[in-house]
């Protein structure tokens, strides 16, 4: 099926984010050789040209890559330009999170938590309308205070700041005390007194297998983390 062959190559070139070498294509295509692959790529390119497609296959880095024709780059740039304006960087998101939870907050305070200069990030967040100036602190130098905007709420799909998950909830969400619950369940089970429930054939050996592990239930890390969060930044 010569025709199918073309389509397999097309699908592979389309799905791959890197140029594909002839060897790679050969390894996937049954009964292919260098010549048949080169010919197929040539046929595909002719087909694209004839049907007036926006795509073409180029030879690059010892391989083949499916790309858009040069003349459409102006449109694609618009696509990405708009998109990057809508995006946040990782440092941006971290700073935004701190502002959201600690507002109103000064730059100095943000830097205290993040440990790095936040000038650039704050500027971007202001430009993006995710934060705004919320007054001045009554302290030496009267530094500016920052807080989140209504657009921030809209962006994250919540109605008001009270809806932001609390630090405790974050910890619960991210960690989940599964181990803890499981160990309690095991004990609960052991305590059921199976005879009374009508289970009579559990042998003592088995019961002993259910014995608890002796490690403290809540790890100290967990405990420390809790304290950390409670005493965090003044």
């Amino acid at each position, binding site marked *: 099926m010569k025709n199918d062959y073309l389509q397999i190559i097309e699908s592979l070139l389309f*799905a791959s984010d890197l140029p594909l070498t002839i060897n790679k294509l050969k390894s996937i295509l049954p009964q292919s050789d260098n010549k048949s692959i080169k010919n197929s790529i040539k046929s595909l390119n002719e087909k694209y040209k004839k049907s007036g497609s926006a795509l073409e296959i180029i030879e690059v880095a010892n391989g083949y890559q499916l790309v858009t024709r040069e003349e459409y780059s102006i449109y694609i*740039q618009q696509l990405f330009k708009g998109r990057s304006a809508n*995006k*946040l960087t990782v440092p941006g998101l971290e700073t935004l*999170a701190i502002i959201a939870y600690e507002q109103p907050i000064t730059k100095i305070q943000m830097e205290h938590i993040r440990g790095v200069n936040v000038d650039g990030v704050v500027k971007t967040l202001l430009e993006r309308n995710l934060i705004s100036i919320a007054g001045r602190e009554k302290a030496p130098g009267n530094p500016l205070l920052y807080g989140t905007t209504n657009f921030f709420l809209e962006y994250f799909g919540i109605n008001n700041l009270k809806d932001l998950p609390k630090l405790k909830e*974050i910890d619960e969400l991210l960690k989940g005390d599964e181990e803890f619950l499981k160990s309690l369940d095991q004990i609960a089970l052991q305590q059921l007194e199976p005879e009374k*429930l009508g289970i009579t054939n559990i042998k003592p050996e*088995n019961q002993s297998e259910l014995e608890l592990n002796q490690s403290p239930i809540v790890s*100290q890390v967990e405990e420390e983390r809790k304290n950390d969060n409670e005493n965090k930044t003044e």
Partner: protein
Amino acid sequence: MTYKIKLEIFEGPFDLLLFLIKKNEVDIYDIPIHEVTDQFLEYIELMKILDLEIAGEFIEMVAILMNIKARMLLPKPIGISDEEYEDPRTELVERLIEYKKFKDAALEISGFESKRRKLYSRKSIEKYFMKKEISTEEYLNDVTLFDLLLALKKALDNMPKITEHRVTRIDITIEQQTEFILNQFASNSAILFSDLINKMKEKIIIIVTFMALLDLINKRQLSVRQSENFDEIRIKLIS
């Protein structure tokens, strides 16, 4: 090895109950509660013997089944008509049906998932186009509130340490609390559970003490009696 994988098929007590109902070919609205309870217990027994973790929900379901079983044995109160009488099984049956509804839906969307995974879209070629204009910082797509949380957690985790930071750590082990419990019997032959814990302020201490207590019971050093539900628990030393 094999059985471990297989037994996980029952995601929870509802799954197991639905299976038992199907297997016995009985009407979901008229579950023979006695048989089903017995089979449910047998299954838990198997899990125990295989030393598999039994989720608390299964234990809870045993209690629910036992309760229904007991209520089914009671005669219908005098003066209550058939229409007014509520079958003790009703609530459980309704929950089973509700669960089944979503279980079936999950199976259907699983088909969507399989199908969609066969259609490949492009990886972004953004980087080729934007290289000159934007910095090398990674940009995020579709940021959600959860991402915001992760960012906050990361920021707090990486926060420079404050020097005069005080951490109150509660060091408590089962061994310590075992000793504590046994010490209580120096002057008393029996103690009440409530007395044992009522001076404890931290939840974690109560929990560890409770575990120590269970441990002692398990090792047959202590015995525990309770006259009725919610009554005081009396703890005695076995000598």
